[in-house]
């Protein structure tokens, strides 16, 4: 039943909208669209010594996408580009049936009910794609 998909943990995370908004002077930004539904995620970030210092997200998307951005924004602080890309791969693997990631990404486990809804996997991955893209194209300082 789809009702299982919208568990309290996901809906609360979506509503909490941790670190929602924009950064005034980000070191990197990226906007990624989901062509399937038109959802759009914009990520701003600042870097400190190769690690993410701060993140903001602006999500025009569903509860899954908002919850994912919210979890990501909290967990990404202090992480390197490699850490975040590894987390993205682990999340994708988890959606495909694999294990939930370990610390500091364990909260991504709230998305395990999304596994059986393949058309919704992209909703969860979109914020990670936006952050990865931003990390790949930092502004020259």
């Amino acid at each position: 039943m789809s009702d299982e998909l919208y568990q309290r943990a996901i809906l609360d995370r979506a509503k909490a909208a941790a670190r929602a908004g924009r950064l005034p002077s980000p070191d990197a930004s990226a906007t990624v669209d989901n062509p399937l539904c038109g959802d759009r995620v914009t990520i701003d970030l600042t870097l400190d010594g190769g690690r993410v210092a701060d993140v903001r997200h602006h999500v025009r998307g569903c509860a899954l996408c908002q919850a994912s951005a919210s979890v990501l924004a909290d967990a990404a602080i202090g992480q390197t580009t490699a850490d975040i890309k590894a987390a993205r791969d682990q999340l994708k693997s988890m959606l495909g049936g694999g294990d939930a990631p370990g610390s500091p990404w364990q909260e991504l486990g709230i998305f395990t009910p999304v596994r059986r809804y393949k058309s919704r996997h992209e909703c969860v991955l979109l914020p990670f794609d936006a952050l990865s893209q931003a990390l790949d194209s930092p502004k020259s300082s």
Partner: protein
Amino acid sequence: MTFDPSAIRAQFPIFAGANGSSLHYLDNAATSQMPRPVLDAVIAFETTSRANVLRGVHRLAEAATEAYDQARGRVARYANVPAEEVVFTSGTTGSLNLVARAFGDTLAAGDEVVVSGIEHHSNLVPWQMLRDRRGIALRILPVTDEGRLDVSALDRTITRRCKLVAVAHASNVSGAVTDVAPIVAAARAVGAKILLDGAQRAPHGPIDIPALGADFYAFSGHKMFGPTGIGVLWARREILEAMPPFLGGGEMIRTVTLEKATWADVPHKFEAGTPPIAQAIGLGAAAEWLMRLDWPSVTAHEMRLTQRVLDGLAHVSGCRVIGPSGLQGRVPVVSFTLAGAHPHDICQILDAHGVALRGGHHCAQPFMDRIGVAGTTRASLALYNSEADVDALMHGLSRAAAQLQ
């Protein structure tokens, strides 16, 4: 002849299968279901007459060609046009791309094509591609807040440079049926041709294309209770004869030498390669099946259900209908937004209640931008829907609102 919705529904095997009785299918604007007579026609062809058409002389080839021709005749009667003006395509998208190539490539820099701000991407992107290929200009007829074409802007949008006006006959988002007459008049006044995208109009009763005054008309089989992979482009004979072919290959030629080829008569000139024969036969059966219905009663039924949807939505807190508020000039397609709830989340929760809806941009992103939303939730009805389907929608929506808002 009376119309009994439950008897109609009983002709659709998908509603009789496992979970069929609890299936509230309200995604008909995307794809409709097929009744038994359509499925029977496809199976009968594949099991008794399967062969290629227009070439062989053996008995199966003769039977296949006859069935294919008969299908064209049935579709032609549904649209009130001569059979030789009906070109079978892969669908509305295929039809529109055919026109954008065969007619579009006769245009030159400085010429203009007009589309509207509520077109499906299939009636926008081919014209953008033509613009980039030929250097024509693309002009946009604006859309009102109700999701109708803004006819007050016709004079300033359709100029003397305009060669084609290509607009939806009915919107797949707002459900608004276009008032064709003023658009035809404005196009005629400057010598431009008119194309109507009838994909959303075709499932709602026989079409009198000549009465509309258009030059091109496109629609799809799978939205009018026929198979996927088949559609129609209609154009007047002299237009079809004047246009160069789109795809080259077998079945569209008269003679071929190593140096050059001459073309078959219309409509075959535009049907290169082996056509989707079974699908065409299925579409012909769908047209025949539809023509036997009592359309005033069917339309009354569809509009009664549409009113039930509109009335129900009016009682949902935070709900905004995107489209006409009444029944005048509309097909039974209702789009809406729900404050604080994303269309895909709504559709996912409604699916758990057995209600099939569509959420998202509906391949009309410019219109979504126009009304300032990422997407809408859409309930689109067909003749087999019932009050129970609408009530399931409303019950599911109240549950979704409680969860998401």
